[in-house]
């Protein structure tokens, strides 16, 4: 990376033998000058990190097909036989199937709620002038920076008093509430960039504000909605802190993330390591598969979120 540039190369003169300063460099340098050395170096470090990323995942998948003695005996070896029973055990006995369903229900509900309520609030805050507008905007946006853990203790008792603990709808409401700051912040910015003329035309044609919002503005905001939707989906699907505190009463109502940790704790004592790896893989593979399929949208959604 710190290789020096040969000025002659910059002016378009074809590759030259590197001179003095580069004598100590690897062989590859002979061919491409600085670019060649850098190329080998780049690929070198990039491949190393690529291996660091993939090895643990492959190791977990391989372990999920082994039996316990193999996991301890040869952690890096391939499974001698495919122990699919690990998966069956994790799905049925360890309740991973139920947890998966719970996560689907709660995330489905809260995602719809977040998108609907978030876009409504953002639309009003972005495009209407009324007293208190800025105050409400900062009230919402301020929620992004505060440590959630601080609010959890009183939140537990707020939920308890409203008998919302350990219920799907209670968790859905809390997920929505904690997703609103970013959603409002992001969509406010997005609605502000949309042209006003279209909305005005709709109003002149006799559409109500509500109708204008649902039939004109929301369709126009689709790219922004998709971005923030992916962001929220991943955040809510991977949520761990909120259910850990608010969803502890009924063991069958656990979210997938919670269930996985509970499984790890209990299996750690029971020693069913293969079942545990199977559970981990069950939780991991669908998300990875979805990511590979929707890779473009996911990356665009998440990076748009951070860049704004």
């Amino acid at each position, binding site marked *: 990376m710190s290789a020096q540039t040969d000025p002659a190369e910059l002016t378009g003169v074809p590759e030259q033998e590197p001179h003095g300063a580069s004598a100590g460099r690897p062989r590859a340098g002979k061919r491409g000058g600085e670019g060649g050395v*850098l190329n080998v170096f780049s690929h070198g470090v990039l491949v190393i990190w690529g291996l660091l990323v993939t090895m*643990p995942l492959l*190791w977990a998948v391989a372990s999920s097909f082994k039996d316990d003695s193999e996991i301890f005996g040869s952690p890096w070896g391939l499974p001698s036989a495919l122990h699919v029973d690990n998966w069956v055990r994790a799905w049925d006995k360890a309740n991973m199937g139920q947890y998966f369903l719970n996560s689907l229900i709660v995330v489905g509900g809260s995602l719809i709620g977040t998108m609907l309520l978030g876009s409504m609030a953002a639309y009003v805050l972005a495009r*209407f002038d009324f007293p208190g507008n800025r105050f409400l905007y900062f009230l919402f946006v301020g929620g992004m920076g505060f440590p959630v853990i601080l*609010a959890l*203790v009183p939140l537990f008792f707020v939920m308890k008093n409203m008998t919302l603990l350990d219920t799907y709808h209670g968790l859905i409401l809390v997920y929505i*509430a904690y997703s609103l700051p970013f959603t409002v912040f992001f969509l406010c910015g997005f609605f502000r960039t949309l042209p006003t003329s279209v909305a005005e035309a709709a109003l002149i044609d006799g559409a109500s504000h509500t109708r204008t919002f649902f039939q004109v503005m929301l369709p126009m905001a689709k790219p922004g909605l998709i971005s923030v939707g992916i962001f929220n989906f991943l955040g809510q699907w991977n949520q761990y802190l909120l259910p850990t505190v608010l969803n502890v009463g009924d063991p069958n109502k656990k979210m997938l993330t919670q269930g996985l940790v509970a499984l790890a704790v209990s299996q750690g004592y029971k020693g069913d390591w293969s079942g545990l790896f199977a559970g*981990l893989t069950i939780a991991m593979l669908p998300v990875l598969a979805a990511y590979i399929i929707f890779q473009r949208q996911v990356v665009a959604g998440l990076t748009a979120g951070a860049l704004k």
Partner: protein
Amino acid sequence: MQHGKYRFIAGFMVVPLAIYAIFVISPFVQAIYYSFTDWTGLSPDMKMVGFGNYVRLFQDDVFWAAVGNSVTLLLLLPVVTLSLGLFFAFMLNVGGRRRKKAVIGGVRGSAAYKILYFFPQVLSVPIVALLFQFAYNPESGALNAFFKAIGLDGVQPDWLGDPQLALWCVMGAMVWANVGFYVVLFSAGMSSIPKDFYEAALLDGANRLNTFFRITLPLLWDTVQTGWIYMGILALDVSAFAFVQIMSVGPGGPDYATEVLPLYVYQKTFRDGQAGYATAIGVSLLIVTLIFSAIVMRLGRRERLEF
């Protein structure tokens, strides 16, 4: 028209605002109030103790251990994660062999690298934390088995069980989980920097290290700063809690070596029944967060570069 407008605004704002006020704002306000009481969290009775909880903080060794570990994470996690992210992104976008005409170029297959690196970002924290907990396991874990396989039988650290190593092990998992996101984010930023900037710099005799510090970094500064704050909040709050709670022995151990502020708040409330004291710890966490954001904003204040 005016009448309709206000009815519309009220109709659209009331539900989101109510949910937000009940579940986010009111708990925050209550937390600050509770931090001045001796509330156990179990019964409704409590009495005001003024600054009693805060005075107690100063004599609490575990609290200071947690502050130390949280601040270590806060200082190191963003530096390591963002540096690696910048480094790999630069390699991907500028590290390639020079082709005809193009002054700089990405390495071949950079799109594939980006897809691969992003993998951990879509996995939930418990998955990553458990994965690493297994890998660190001294008897059956992948790491020690790897050391054995390459002949380093003598090197069999206890990883998460060793007070000297435990925090670094947790941090390793956090870095692993987050680097890919920044590679992709910074790549997006780098690819929008006009190529002629690099062309001009290289003509003037700058090497790639120079171009990185003189062109790439300044032009990406806004993004880096956003990432910095984001990683800082991660290091202090939700993510740190989940990683430490799942991975470390105790959790928080061994010997409070991995105790962090959010975990301590959680333990004091739900394990020890000292909700009032716990919220005081939470308020101190809030103060650390605010100081951190203020410093980053201040350091980051520099002229905005337009291009």
